[in-house]
């Protein structure tokens, strides 16, 4: 029988030896949206031995245009992306180990997620989470492959702790919410390109090939590309990778409890310490007669309440669709949960 990896092993820079290294690799993919699903499929087909996928959201119809692991059935069932992605990836390659977690990556859980990983693929949709992951990657000295895209434009950079600048050196501060807000849409080819750059860097790093500190951008619609050697931006005073690093974003998360999901008219509430959501079963009993259009699966409970759509997750988070005001979202939450 022909080995499923034969074409990849014939590729000289990888070879049979490289295939063994790929099998031993453990990769964390943070986010299972467009970039995350594209990377996950390529890495699984390439035979990376262990994948961990973490995502906080569930599949919606508007995802199907570019998030390649999901089907109409997943959208109908509002399956959490982490669960749907794991199922599809495991069907693509049953020989590898795939773990997934339905959770919001934050300063409190990221250490556990990155521990023992070979490298981390960035596939998140906001800067705050990126900087949290960047802090943890540098702290644990694990390469972090940054990638982002919007509209027809995308960019990538490989953070290699101890060698290159980190993401914090490059962006210097958390951009204002409106600068990251996705209101201009996105087309799938740019997703594929950005993910292809990230996965190529992953294959190179796992095989011991050098990855230069190049910041690269492409606008696929305009056919415009740029490349800057960012090596000189490594900041010795950087709070994340400098000599007196404090990893500020790992504790920053302690302070935030509500997130506005940009461009989606949605607020996420995360229970603070000492407050938890009742189990979903109990919650669904409690909501009978007050909420409409209830859909429940083992991972979440979705319902309509007045003009809002509310989704409760098993891990305690709640999404309130229909507002982008955190204060209003809290009032609705308190009214419905009590």
């Amino acid at each position, binding site marked *: 029988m022909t080995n499923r990896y034969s074409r990849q092993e014939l590729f000289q820079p990888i070879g049979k030896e490289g295939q063994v290294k790929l099998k031993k690799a453990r990769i964390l993919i943070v986010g299972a949206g467009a970039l995350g699903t594209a990377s996950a499929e390529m890495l699984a087909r390439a035979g990376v031995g262990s994948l961990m996928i973490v995502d906080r959201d569930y599949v919606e119809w508007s995802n199907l245009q570019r998030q390649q692991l999901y089907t109409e059935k997943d959208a109908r069932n509002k399956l959490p992306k982490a669960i749907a992605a794991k199922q599809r990836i495991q069907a693509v390659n049953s020989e590898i180990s795939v773990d997934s977690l339905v959770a919001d990556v934050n300063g409190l859980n990221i250490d556990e997620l990155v521990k023992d990983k070979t490298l981390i693929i960035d596939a998140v949709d906001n800067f705050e989470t990126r900087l949290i992951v960047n802090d943890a990657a540098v702290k644990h000295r694990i390469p972090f492959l940054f990638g*982002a895209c919007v509209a027809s434009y*995308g960019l990538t950079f490989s953070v290699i702790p101890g060698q290159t600048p980190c993401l914090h050196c490059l962006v210097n501060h958390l951009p204002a919410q409106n600068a990251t807000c996705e209101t201009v849409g996105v087309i799938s080819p740019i997703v594929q390109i950005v993910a292809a750059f990230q996965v190529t860097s992953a294959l190179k790093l796992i095989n011991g090939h050098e990855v230069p500190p190049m910041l690269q951008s492409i606008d696929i619609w305009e056919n415009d590309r740029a490349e800057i050697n960012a090596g*000189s931006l490594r900041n010795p005073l950087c709070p994340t990778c400098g000599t007196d690093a404090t990893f500020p974003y790992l504790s920053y998360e302690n302070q935030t409890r509500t997130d506005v999901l940009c461009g989606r008219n949605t607020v996420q509430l995360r229970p603070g310490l000492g407050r938890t959501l009742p189990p979903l079963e109990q919650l669904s009993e409690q909501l009978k007669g007050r909420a409409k259009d209830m859909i429940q699966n083992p991972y979440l409970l979705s319902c309509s309440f007045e003009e809002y759509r509310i989704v409760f997750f098993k891990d305690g988070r709640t999404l309130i669709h229909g507002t982008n005001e955190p204060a209003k979202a809290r009032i609705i939450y308190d009214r419905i949960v009590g």
Partner: protein
Amino acid sequence: MTIKLNGRSVKLPTGVNTVKDLLDHYNLENRIVIVELNKQITEKNQYTSLFLSDGDMVEMIHFVGGG
């Protein structure tokens, strides 16, 4: 003047003289952006004082949040 922007020849309109003008021209003034002028990355505090000349090679990459 004509510069090479991201590898392409671009004729700049009059009034675009500095790196800051260039960012304004492309509506990138409020974005996180890294600008390389003739293979040298420019500091943010130099944007207003760095004048562009004919034939300059500029690479400009801005950050976005999506994924």
